[in-house]
């Protein structure tokens, strides 16, 4: 699929899955979509390994936009991008946006074939500068 993929990263697997469900219902299946939530021990938190796997599941040649909730989700996503490295790392963008609204808006933009930069910008319009 050539549409930008969307990855949702939350401290809570329930929040991540719920946000993904909303994207699927509102935007449909035109966009590669993956989510992850919870720390490596199964508690609330995020896991670099799980984020890397989610990026792979949602991978698109057009790139992947990541929506994150709180601090650790962002730094763990940055770490995951670094560890994936290579050519892929340059085609992954973390969006500074609220996770639910950002995911829906990013996916809507992506479903129309927008570029990664456009998808990221659309999601970030939701955050005050």
């Amino acid at each position: 699929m050539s549409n930008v993929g969307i990855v949702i990263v939350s401290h809570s697997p329930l929040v991540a899955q719920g946000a993904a469900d909303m994207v699927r219902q509102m935007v449909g299946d035109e966009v590669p979509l993956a989510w992850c939530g919870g720390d490596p021990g199964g508690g609330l938190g995020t896991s670099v390994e799980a984020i890397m796997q989610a990026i792979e599941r949602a991978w698109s040649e057009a790139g992947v936009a990541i929506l994150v909730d709180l601090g650790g989700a962002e730094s763990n996503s940055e770490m995951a991008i670094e560890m994936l490295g290579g050519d892929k790392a340059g085609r992954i963008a973390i969006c500074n946006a609220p996770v639910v609204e950002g995911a829906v808006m990013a996916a809507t933009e992506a479903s129309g074939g927008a570029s990664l930069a456009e998808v990221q910008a659309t999601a970030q319009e939701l955050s005050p500068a």
Partner: protein
Amino acid sequence: MISEAQLRELLDAISATITAHAEELTTLDSAIGDGDHGANMKRGFDAVAAEAAALAGKPLPEALKAIGTKLVMTVGGASGPLYGTMFLTLGKELATAPEDYTSAFRKAVDAVAARGKSAFGQKTMLDVLYPVADALDAGKSKAEILAVANDEVAATKDRKAIRGRASFLGDRSIGHIDPGARSSALIVEAIAGAL
């Protein structure tokens, strides 16, 4: 030069210290964070301890990079990438300039600051790590370095959190010791004790 036996001892010492203080770290984190710092750090360093023998058998830079990767993958929470970056950078720096420990340490602390988009004085682990880097540069003794680390942990109590979860609390973060500063001092203490 750090021998295989020393490295093994060092890894065991860090892991034992974190385990012994896991509850304390969690209590500190419950006051101004999300109360998982002790459990997260323990999970990470338990994973390192489980492979201590194999890790100690590697050349030091490789061992440090492997420890960093292990922490990144197992700690979870914001401290995983921060402590992971610290060890990964130490390994990277010592691979290019072996034996230059003080310079490697400072570069590792800079990398943590970049990863956390933070600086000294914002009630984080950097409040301990930068003064320790300064003390190393100044050639201070182990006892002096430990005193610096512990004084700086205490100093975080009166600071207001600017970065991280504790910053959501604003002024209410004042009056509590920062758990990341405390865990950093504990690691410094474990390393100083083992070397």
